[in-house]
């Protein structure tokens, strides 16, 4: 039963991943990528990683929703009404990727992997939580700070208007001069 589920999920994940670069419609490409992610989350649920599987579903859905907004914004052919491929160096990329797959698959099949040490815990979530709160707290701190830095950096890069546009040249305006005011009145 698990084996059937795994093969189904694995085939759908890889096929939808390949179709991402074949379809003409950008919206469909994004949601094919989401399908690939959901299948990967399904394989994680098969490995008793309940929390991480549900978390992957959650995060990847939000990411693909945001990505589809940007796809429609930037790409010339979002609805796929014209056939379009925008590739450069296609043969080189194909050769490199097939070579990478052969190399990695050979490694996966030929390397003598170590024998399993220990049993999976009853509650994998608790194991993860205790670990990132005790031994691996550095990971959590670094991830937290880097996520915050990303938010600040992304806003700074993407915004078209800065402080001086909003508050005037001397930064003296009491209310910011925004085209669409927010709800708080700042």
């Amino acid at each position, binding site marked *: 039963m698990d084996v059937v589920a795994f093969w189904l999920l694995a085939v759908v994940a890889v096929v939808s991943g390949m179709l991402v*670069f074949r379809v003409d419609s950008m919206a469909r490409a994004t949601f094919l990528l989401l399908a690939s992610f959901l299948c990967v989350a399904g394989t994680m649920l*098969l490995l*008793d990683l309940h929390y991480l599987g549900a978390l992957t579903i959650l995060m990847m859905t939000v990411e693909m929703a945001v*990505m589809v907004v940007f796809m429609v914004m*930037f790409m010339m052919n979002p609805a796929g009404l014209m056939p379009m491929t925008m590739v450069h160096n296609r043969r080189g*990329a194909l050769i490199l990727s097939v070579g990478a797959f052969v190399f990695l698959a050979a490694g996966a099949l030929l390397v003598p992997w170590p024998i399993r040490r220990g049993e999976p815990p009853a509650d994998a979530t608790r194991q*993860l939580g205790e670990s990132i709160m005790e031994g691996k707290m550095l990971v959590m701190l670094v991830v937290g700070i880097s996520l915050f830095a*990303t938010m600040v950096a992304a806003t700074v890069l993407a915004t078209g208007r800065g402080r001086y546009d909003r508050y005037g040249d001397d930064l003296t305006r009491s209310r910011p001069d925004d085209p669409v005011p927010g709800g708080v009145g700042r």
Partner: protein
Amino acid sequence: MSLQLFLLLASALFAVGLYGALSQQSIVMIMMGLELMLNGVLVAAAAFWYFVSPQRADGQVLVLLVLAVMAVEMAMGFAVATAIFRARDVDMTDMAGDLKG
């Protein structure tokens, strides 16, 4: 369900993502390729946790880290794409090769 099967899935996802990241011209499509590669890493890390050392949380922490990296990469990628679009009205990497050579 064995470690080798999961690693084959991870290699396939990684290879498909590599094809996308190398061959696509648009910044957004390159990012989709990168996301697929990180997807492969996610599967591999989860498989290693379950099949090699499930009594330690190291594999799970790696999965968490890869998820955070995916979010960060997407955010910064879109910010850079927006900034380039505002400056030059393009979204292809071919027209952003200022640092080349």
